[in-house]
C-alpha cells in the first residue's frame, strides 16, 4: 500500500471509530476522550501563536477562563442555547486576545512573557474578587443546558458538538498554515526584521495570531464547562498555562500533528499515572524540562528522525 493510501485508510478508520466511540465507551473513557478533544483545540491555538508566530503566551489559561465563564454564565443566567453561548464565548475570548495582543505587538521574549503573566494574574484576581458573578474560589456549577429541544441525549449532543468543534479547529489550523497568513507567521518567527523588510505588517500579524489563538482557547474553555459541568478557578492558574505549553513542546512546535499528538499523549498521562496521582505535577514538569533539553522538536520531530533513518 502506498503512503497516501495508508493515510486515507487511517483517517477513515479514525473517523469511524470516533463516530461510534460514545456508544461503546463507558462514562469515564468518554469523559477522557472529551478532555483530549478540548486539549487538542487548545494546543492547536497555542501552537499557532507560539510554534508558528513565535510569541510566548503564559495566559492561555486565562483566555480559556474567559470562554468557560462566558459560556456558563450565559447558559445558567440567561438560558442561551448552547451553540449560541459557545459562539459568544469564542467572541469574548478573542476580545481578550485582542486586549493582550494589542499592547503586546511591540513586546517579545521575556517582556511578552511578563505581560501575559500579568494578564493571567489579573484574571485570577478578578475571578477571586467578584465571587457574586464568578463563584470566587468555590467555582460554578453548570445548570441543565438549553439545546433548543433537540431530541437526543445530552451526552451525545455534547460529544458530537465537541467532535465537530475539534474537526473544525483542525481544518482551520491547517488552512491557516497553508495560507499567506501561516507563511507570514513563519516569517515573523524566523526574523521580524526580515519580515518587516519584505512588507509583512509585523504588528498586525502578531495581533492576528493572538486573537486567533485566544479564540481557540475560548472554544476549548466553553467546551470544558460543557464536558466537566463545573468550573474550578484553580484550572486557570500558572500551572495550567504551563501544562498547555507542555502539550505543544512535547508534541512538536509549529505542527498541527504535534498539537494533536501532544494533547492526546498528555491527556492519557494522568490515566497512566493514576497509581501515583500525587506525582502528576512533578512528572508533567519533568517531562516538559526533559523534552526541552533532549527533544526540542517534540514527538513529531522523533517521527521525522525515524523516517530519515530508514
Amino acid at each position, binding site marked *: 500500500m502506498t503512503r497516501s493510501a495508508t493515510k486515507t485508510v487511517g483517517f477513515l478508520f479514525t473517523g469511524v471509530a470516533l463516530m461510534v466511540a460514545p456508544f461503546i465507551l463507558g462514562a469515564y473513557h468518554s469523559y477522557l476522550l472529551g478532555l483530549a478533544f478540548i486539549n487538542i483545540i487548545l494546543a492547536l491555538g497555542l501552537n499557532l501563536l507560539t510554534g508558528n508566530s513565535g510569541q510566548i503566551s503564559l495566559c492561555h489559561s486565562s483566555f480559556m477562563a474567559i470562554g468557560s465563564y462566558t459560556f456558563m454564565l450565559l447558559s445558567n443566567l440567561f438560558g442561551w442555547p448552547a451553540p449560541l453561548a459557545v459562539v459568544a464565548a469564542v467572541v469574548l475570548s478573542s476580545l481578550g486576545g485582542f486586549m493582550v495582543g494589542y499592547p503586546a505587538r511591540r513586546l517579545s521574549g521575556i517582556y511578552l512573557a511578563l505581560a501575559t503573566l500579568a494578564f493571567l494574574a489579573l484574571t485570577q484576581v478578578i475571578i477571586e*474578587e467578584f465571587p457574586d458573578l464568578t463563584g470566587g474560589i468555590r467555582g460554578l456549577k453548570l445548570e441543565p443546558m438549553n439545546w433548543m429541544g433537540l431530541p437526543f441525549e445530552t451526552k451525545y449532543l455534547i460529544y458530537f458538538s465537541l467532535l465537530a468543534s475539534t474537526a473544525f479547529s483542525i481544518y482551520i489550523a491547517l488552512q491557516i498554515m497553508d495560507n499567506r497568513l501561516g507563511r507570514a507567521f513563519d516569517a515573523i518567527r524566523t526574523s521580524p526584521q526580515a519580515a518587516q523588510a519584505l512588507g509583512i505588517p509585523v504588528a498586525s500579524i502578531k495581533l492576528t495570531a493572538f486573537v486567533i489563538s485566544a479564540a481557540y482557547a475560548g472554544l476549548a474553555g466553553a467546551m470544558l464547562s460543557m464536558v466537566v459541568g463545573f468550573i474550578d478557578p484553580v484550572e486557570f492558574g500558572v500551572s495550567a498555562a504551563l501544562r498547555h505549553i507542555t502539550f505543544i513542546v512535547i508534541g512538536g512546535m509549529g505542527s498541527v500533528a504535534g498539537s494533536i499528538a501532544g494533547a492526546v499523549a498528555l491527556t492519557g498521562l494522568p490515566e497512566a499515572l493514576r497509581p501515583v496521582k500525587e*506525582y502528576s505535577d512533578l512528572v508533567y514538569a519533568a517531562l516538559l524540562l526533559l523534552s526541552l533539553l533532549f527533544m526540542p522538536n517534540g514527538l513529531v520531530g522523533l517521527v521525522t528522525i525515524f523516517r530519515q533513518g530508514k
Partner: protein
Amino acid sequence: MTGSVLLQLLISSLSVGSIYAIVALALVIPFKASGILNFGQGEIVTVGAYTALVLVGFGVSYWLVLPLTVLVGWLAGMAIERSLIRPIMAAPEFTIVIATFAIGLILKSAIRLYWQDNPFALETPLNTEPLHFAGVVLNPLYLWVVFCTLVLIAFLAYFFKHNRLGKSMRAVSQSHDASRLMGIGVERVLMISWGMSAAIGALGGILLAPIVGINPEMGHLVLKALVAAVIGGFSSLPGAFVGGILLGLVETYSGAFFGSTLKNIIPFVLLVIFLLIRPYGLFGKPPVVRI
C-alpha cells in the same frame, strides 16, 4: 487620617517592599550576567524557607540557620546553573523561559509531595511582643527584614564596586566575549552569579517565613518581585531595590485607602503600564538590538 497611621503604613510598606526588593535583586543578578530571567526564582524562596524549617527542626539555633540556609541556596543555585541552564544557554528564548518555569514547578511539586499543603510556622528569636514607639507599633520581625535588606544592599554595593569577582561579574554582564579575552572564566562567573541569586532568594525565604508562614505556594511572591524588577529596570541593581520599595508603598497605601481589590490588581496594572511605556524601567537602559 492621623500622622501616626500614615507612619504605621509607611513602616509596613517598607518591610513588604524590602522582601520584594530582595527577591527582585535575586532576579536581576543572574539576568544581568547571563541574560536569563529565572521564572523559578519564587520556588528558590520556598526552598529557602523549607530548608530553614528543617534546620530549626533539628534544633539548630536561628542565628546558625540563617547562614546555613543561605549556603544551601547558594549550592542549589550553582547546581541548577551547571546542570540545567548551561546546556540551554544558546537555545531560543522560549525554551529558556519555559525551562526556568519548569524547574520552579519541579521544586514546588517535590516540596508539596513531602510536606503536603500544611502551613508551618518558623520560630525565631524575633517572634516577640511588638515594640511601641511614638504611637507606632513596630513588629521586630519587620524591622529585621528591613535591616537585612539594607545590609544586603551595602554588601552588594561594595561587592560590585571593589571586589574582583564582583567586577568580573559586571564585565560579563557587558560582553561575554570581551570578558573571555580579558581572562575571565565566563562559565565560572555565570555559575557564581546563579549561586548568589539563589542565596539571596533563600535569604528572602527565611525572612518571609515567620511573617506569612511556610507553605508550597510562597513562591507566588515572585510575581510581585517581577513587577518590582520591571519598575526598577531589569538591568539595574539599585533599580530593583527602588522598584521593590515603590511597589510596597503603592500596594500598602492603595490597599489602605481603596480596599483589597485595588491592592491586588494594582501591581499587575503597573506592570503592564511599565512594559508599554518604559519596558526597561526607571533605571535601566534600553537594550541595543543587533539584527
